[in-house]
């Protein structure tokens, strides 16, 4: 992210307000359109107002407010307003690499998903992950808190190695936060990724996984193309691997990569979690309005 450049353009923010995060808990809450007549005023408590967006139920529009202000607002009820969204972003040193840089892409994705949650008055928690879980931002709700979210994301620095098992386990185990929709943005280049995701599921969180990689990780070609003798130095640990980067090695890498990415996707499918593979060179608009919608993260 260039110094001073906004994570989200104003026009994109306006478009994002029409979206919402998909959650089974929210789907259950939204069904109170039918339940409301039967349980009038009992368990459905008014919580807040939100500006009307395309797709909202017209029955929820507050016409009194419209009469006074001329703007359409919908009423939010407690069970709908209190969806907790946990945005967990890998900020380890492996993420601060690649062209385009993965950490910059992760910040933009987190900003977009976080803004969608804020605009829908979800309770948003944002936490950076590396060897452990960093200081959590939130709860935030409402568009007024967007500046706080963007400022928090821009302030993150990649300093340490990844241990997703420990970091996600630490977040899941911390008390005081209700379970909700946990969105993990990471390259998942950590042997303990499965432990971490299982820890979130054990705490009855719904899960959405954004698997963020840079083009060179998907299709490596080496700095000068194939046929080179390379000493690959791990940015996180300093360990190195010596390899002759020829066609058989690239084929073997492609197979290993497919097995590893497939294992993460299968894990998500097995546990009813959304899985999105996103390349760091993908346009943010395309990711939000096509990939995330197609993969049932946003609607």
């Amino acid at each position, binding site marked *: 992210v260039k110094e001073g450049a906004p994570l989200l353009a104003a026009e994109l923010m306006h478009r994002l307000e029409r979206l919402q995060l998909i959650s089974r808990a929210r789907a259950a809450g939204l069904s109170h359109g039918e339940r409301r007549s039967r349980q009038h005023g009992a368990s459905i408590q008014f919580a807040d107002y939100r500006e009307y967006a395309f797709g909202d139920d017209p029955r929820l529009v507050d016409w009194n407010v419209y009469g006074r202000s001329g703007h359409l607002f919908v009423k939010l009820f407690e069970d709908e307003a209190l969806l907790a969204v946990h945005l967990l972003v890998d900020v380890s*040193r492996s993420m601060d690499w690649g062209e385009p840089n993965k950490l910059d892409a992760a910040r933009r994705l987190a900003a977009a998903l976080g803004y969608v949650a804020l605009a829908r008055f979800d309770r948003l928690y944002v936490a950076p992950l590396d060897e452990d879980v960093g200081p959590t931002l939130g709860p935030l709700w409402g568009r007024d808190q967007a500046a706080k979210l963007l400022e928090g994301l821009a302030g993150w620095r990649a300093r340490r190695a990844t241990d997703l098992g420990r970091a996600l386990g630490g977040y899941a185990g911390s008390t005081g936060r209700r379970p909700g929709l946990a969105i993990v943005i990471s390259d998942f*280049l*950590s042997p303990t990724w499965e432990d971490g995701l299982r820890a979130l599921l054990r705490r009855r969180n719904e899960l959405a996984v954004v698997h963020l990689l840079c083009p060179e990780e998907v299709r490596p070609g080496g700095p000068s193309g194939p046929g080179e*003798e390379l*000493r690959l*130095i791990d940015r996180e640990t300093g*360990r190195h691997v010596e390899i002759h980067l020829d066609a058989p090695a690239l084929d*073997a890498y492609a197979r290993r990569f497919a097995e590893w990415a497939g294992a993460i996707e299968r894990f998500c499918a097995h546990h009813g979690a959304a899985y999105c593979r996103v390349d760091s060179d993908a346009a943010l608009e395309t990711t939000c309005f096509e990939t995330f919608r197609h993969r049932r993260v946003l609607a």
Partner: protein
Amino acid sequence: VTFLVPLGLLALLSIAVLVLFYLLRVRYRDHEVGSTYLWAQLTRDLAVHEPWQKPRISVLMLIQALLLAGRRSDAEARGQRFHKAYPGSLYGNAVDALLAPREDGGR
């Protein structure tokens, strides 16, 4: 120093061979990557198919070698010939094939 001593001449030639090996050694170019997590798994797979490999120190292999040496010396002390056939190895499979009763009854 005289070149008429064969060992001295051999030692001199070995220096030339060492220099040649040094000149022909593989030169690796350093390249930083985000993580070697996948590459490290890959090199293990690729190394299995390489005809020449660097010797790796393995504790299990050392223990096996020591045990083998100990049992061999015992067997030799008793005047017996001793063969170790690892199951699944080419040699082990060959021994299995030799010892297995033939289906045609040895005709």
